[in-house]
């Protein structure tokens, strides 16, 4: 048995797995609702940031705009938590699901994109970009990749029941 399968079997047998799988019937709908609120929070704040870097609403200085980022992180943490709970409730509908694999891949790539943004020093540069100023082309590429990847995450998430077999 693979590690993934062993982990899934164990997780499914925990109290958490039992509760999410229907043992406590309101948990699944609640997690779905929170998952969509987290999605909106993450997409909203990230897209303001990305669209500004791409040249929209240039009157926004990027340093102060970064102060909204904790809200995007909050959205991500909400979705990581609720997503983990869906997995605990029914791991076997996900582990062989192509759409689930693609969703994780896109989340991973979006993470790498953020890491490149920080490690390359673009973050510090962009932090000083004031109202009306342009960001470097490299930062625009990061912004475009970010929008593409996060919309992609939504795509694969939505395709879970249709390409794979999860709901």
């Amino acid at each position, binding site marked *: 048995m693979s590690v993934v399968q062993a982990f899934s079997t164990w997780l499914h047998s925990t109290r958490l797995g039992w509760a999410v799988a*229907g043992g406590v*019937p309101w948990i*699944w*709908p609640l997690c*779905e*609702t929170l998952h*969509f*609120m987290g*999605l*909106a*929070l*993450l*997409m*909203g*704040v990230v*897209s*303001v940031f990305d*669209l500004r870097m791409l040249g*929209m*609403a*240039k*009157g*926004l*200085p990027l*340093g*102060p*705009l*970064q*102060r*909204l980022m904790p*809200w995007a992180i909050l959205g991500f943490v909400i979705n990581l938590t609720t997503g983990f709970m869906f997995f605990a*409730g029914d791991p076997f509908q996900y582990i062989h699901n192509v759409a689930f694999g693609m969703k994780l891949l896109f989340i991973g790539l979006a993470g790498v994109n953020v890491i490149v943004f920080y490690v390359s020093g673009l973050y510090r540069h962009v932090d000083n970009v004031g*109202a009306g100023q342009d960001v470097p082309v490299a930062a625009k590429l990061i912004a475009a990749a970010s929008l593409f990847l996060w*919309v992609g995450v*939504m*795509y694969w*998430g*939505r*395709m879970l*029941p*249709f*390409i794979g*077999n999860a*709901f």
Partner: protein
Amino acid sequence: MMQFLASVENTRFSIWVRESSSLWAYPTILFMHTVGLGFLVGLNAAIDLRILGFARRMPLAPMERFFGIMWAAFWVNAVSGTMLLVADATTKLTNTVFYIKLGFIALGVVNMVLIRRRIFRDPALDVDARPIGRFGRLLAATSLVFWGGAITAGRLMAYFGPVSGAPGLQNRIP
């Protein structure tokens, strides 16, 4: 009435949306509805948070540019939502939760127009980086509540009352 809803549900288009095995039918329409949600609710929330005082050193006025995207996202969702609705007219239009969702959306849209008129059109906006007044902050708070309500009702349509959805889509709670 039920007969009318059934005829709406049985047009060739409705049947295609609901029963086609093509990814371009139900799955892609549902995906568009999700993208629209992300941008409409997400950008509204970002503006609301700024009005409530987060990222205070950032001027609010330039954010008016995002209203264009918010309206585009609203129309994407009005169109995709109508497509999903006609595919399951007999269940969705007899489900109280659907009308609660529509109510929250109406409130959210009116709220969004008010935020633009009362806050963005205020000549004193961003002057001396002063905080937004009490009425403006109230509008931001109600905006968050209305959009949160629309999301919650939209999700719960799959669990209360007559339930619909593409074949293969099951709901967790029997």
